């Protein structure tokens, strides 16, 4: 029976090879187009950025003054936990997957992602996972409140929310693994013949390496939370010393996942920065191959440093020393990167459009976050910093003015290519300056608070911490409100922006850097159905 249908189906398919998008809302549910799925990822991430941001506002409002003002301590702890989970798994990671979906096929001259149906599924698995997670907010006993690390035994005291949170992690893990497999297959198998590995844009390289990290770590996290599930519901003793298990075992497994996980959020950030800075410096990227090797080194090191998150659990001395030195090694490839970005700008004909402003701020402020990381790598010094606001300041410097700033930069950089419209540069610059100033008012004082001994994850604090907390909260409110400008710009640009007609290259000579700028703006629904003959080279 099938043999009869075959030729017909086949012709049908050929006939529609150059079709545009489907009509109606169903397009967004069953699409296999990398641009559609990229858009879904990016819009979903933007929505989650505001959901997670609202939770951060609750946290900063409660910490505005000493004493309990607005929320009870249990809910406060739910907010810190959910803020982290939503931002990491709902906002930053999906935003980078969205960029990968849009950009990788266009940058390597491929017609689409290698596995388009699985691409659709990985997006909807993400939505399903976040739905399960969000549902816990309305459950008896509240949302998980033991911190995003879900340490036992505390997390096992979670109410009805626990199994939902665990299955949410499973779904998010499946989503990430499918996305990562797709990216690897796309990059290895779909490049235009002229696009050799060492000609790929850095964004593609960093995502390739990130995808390997994801496939290696997401199953580890899934295994860890599975053991939490069986410890709670099926009588096992993995993390219970009475049965011969060990709660510290969970911490080892979690951070074997967790440390590469934070690099999952920063490596694509490096890639975007390495893509944007050369365009506005009007020079090729300085030290292309060293950038590739540095990224690979950072990825490798991320697997052998995990216990620097656990200097206080009572590891043997040899362990403390090993993890201290191994962690310090990461500063070397990271330093190579910062040097290369700076050298790319050196004597460049620089202009300062919004994407470049965000990228320069990234280089400066990420370096700040890197330095505090180096401080905490020193085990004896970390005894003081551990679990204080110092660590909160550190990782927010590496995530907000680094990953999030670069996501903003990517938005400004590629929106004209995606929509064919120019964003409003004045509002973009306003958004940048408000964000760059307020993010420092928000997080810089947290260094002082941490050094003075204020613990993290507390809803109330001793009065000596009052002043800097108030400053930090004011910075937080300004930062939060400033992001509404970005929302406005995204909507405005999609609806026509400044009305100015953008060229194919959008940014002066951008087509010398990467393939997507050789395509029309907006990029057609299907691009590179035949691979491009030539690709931009590293030196021009």
């Amino acid at each position, binding site marked *: 029976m099938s043999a009869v249908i075959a030729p017909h189906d086949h012709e049908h398919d050929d006939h529609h090879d150059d079709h545009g998008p489907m009509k109606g809302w169903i397009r967004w549910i069953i699409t296999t187009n990398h641009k559609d799925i990229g858009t879904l990822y990016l819009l979903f991430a933007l929505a989650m950025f505001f959901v997670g941001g609202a939770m951060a506002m609750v946290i900063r409002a409660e910490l505005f003054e000493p004493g309990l003002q607005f929320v009870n301590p249990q809910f406060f702890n739910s907010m810190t936990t959910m803020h982290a989970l939503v931002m990491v798994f709902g906002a930053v990671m999906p935003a980078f997957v969205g960029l990968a979906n849009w950009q990788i096929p266009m940058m390597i001259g491929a017609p689409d992602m290698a596995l388009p149906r699985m691409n659709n599924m990985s997006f*909807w698995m993400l939505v399903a996972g976040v739905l*399960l997670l969000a549902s816990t907010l309305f459950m008896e006993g509240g949302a998980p409140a033991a911190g995003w690390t879900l340490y036992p035994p505390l997390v096992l005291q979670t109410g009805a929310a626990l199994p939902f949170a665990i299955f949410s992690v499973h779904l998010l893990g499946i989503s990430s693994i499918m996305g990562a497999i*797709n990216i690897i297959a796309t990059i290895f*198998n*779909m490049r235009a013949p002229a696009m050799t590995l060492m000609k790929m844009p850095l964004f593609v390289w960093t995502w390739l390496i990130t995808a390997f990290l994801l496939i290696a770590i997401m199953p580890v996290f899934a295994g860890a939370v599975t053991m939490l599930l069986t410890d709670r*519901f099926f*009588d096992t003793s993995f993390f219970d010393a009475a049965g011969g*298990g*060990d709660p510290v075992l969970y911490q*080892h497994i979690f951070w074997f996942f967790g440390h590469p996980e934070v690099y999952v959020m920063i490596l694509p950030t490096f890639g975007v920065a390495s893509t944007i800075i050369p365009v506005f410096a009007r020079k090729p990227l300085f030290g292309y191959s060293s950038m590739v090797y540095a990224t690979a080194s950072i990825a490798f090191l991320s697997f052998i440093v995990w216990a620097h998150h656990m200097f206080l659990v009572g590891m043997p001395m040899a362990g403390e020393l090993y993890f201290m030195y191994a962690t310090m090694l990461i500063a070397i490839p990271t330093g190579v990167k910062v040097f290369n970005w700076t050298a790319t700008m050196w004597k460049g004909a620089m202009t300062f459009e919004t994407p470049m402003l965000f990228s320069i701020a990234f280089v400066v402020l990420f370096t700040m976050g890197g330095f505090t990381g180096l401080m905490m790598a020193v085990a004896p010094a970390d005894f003081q910093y551990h679990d204080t606001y110092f660590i909160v300041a550190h990782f927010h410097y590496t995530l907000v003015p680094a990953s999030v700033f670069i996501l903003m930069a990517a938005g400004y950089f590629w929106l004209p290519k995606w929509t064919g419209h120019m964003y409003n540069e004045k509002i973009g610059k306003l958004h940048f300056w408000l964000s760059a100033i307020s993010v420092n008012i928000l997080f810089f004082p947290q260094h002082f608070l941490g050094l003075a001994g204020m613990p993290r994850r507390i809803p109330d604090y001793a009065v000596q911490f009052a002043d800097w907390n108030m400053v930090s909260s004011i910075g937080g409110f300004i930062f939060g409100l400033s992001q509404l400008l970005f929302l406005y710009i995204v909507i405005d640009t999609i609806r026509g922006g400044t009305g100015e007609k953008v060229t194919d290259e959008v940014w002066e000579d951008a087509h010398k850097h990467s393939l997507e700028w050789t395509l029309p703006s907006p990029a057609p629904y299907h691009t590179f159905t035949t691979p491009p003959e030539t690709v931009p080279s590293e030196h021009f």
Partner: protein
Amino acid sequence: MSTHNAYYIPHKATWPIIGTVGLFIMLAGFANFLNGSSIGPGMMILGLLVFIFMLAGWFTLQSLESEYGMYNTQVGISYRMGMMWFIFSEVMFFSVFFGALWYTRNLSVPWLAEGVTGEMLHKGFEAVWPTNGPAHLLGGKPTPDGEFEPMGAWGLAFLNTLILLSSGVTCTWAHHGLLAGKRQQLIQGLIATVVLGFLFVGFQAYEYHEAYTEMGLTLGTGIYGSTFFMLTGFHGFHVCVGAIILSTVLFRSWRGHFKPENHFAFEAAAWYWHFVDVVWLGLFVFVYLL
């Protein structure tokens, strides 16, 4: 015309969203069930049915497309890469539980008995493997006397090792049949592999029954029971999945699918089966033997 030179890109896909909804309902149902809600089991079954419907539909679609010649060599490479890295993710999943076994046996159980901790908290606890921990010294779980019998290596476990290794051989024999265009050898080899696979699962079910009813060995038997059942349980689940995949490959072989130069489904199933085989060897050595 049945050869595509362009990379095949489907223009829409309904199975992914159906599968996601099924999995979502199933997991939400499982979570409700664990919380003691009465709607849990119903949701689980409904979600599972939707999920199975998706698997059947999606894989049917894929195999028909493959038979129509819509996949060129480049598409085949994408599928192979996908399967390869999926198996790698499975390796990482199993390594978590192997890691937990290594860590508890070599580090945390000895720490429980050592020094001041052992002296002050649970005097008399000996760091030997297998152990169900010091709980019984404190009058806690699982049984008041803390007695259980560990699972031996040279009974059913050894028999199962032979069964699984033989199934690896029959699987490769079937592959050789396929490559040489010997249809009979292909089908007989696959039948043998599937039968051996389900035989393995049957013996393991019997082993579990013995453990629970005769040996006092359960999931609650401290860290030994936890690691034993989690490792062998997840492995057994993978054997089931692998045997079901091989059954569909057998069905397709019987329908005359696959050519010596194009049989990705067979290869993927065989890779998966060998992976499950290798995991079992690890289990036999580290869980049963040592």
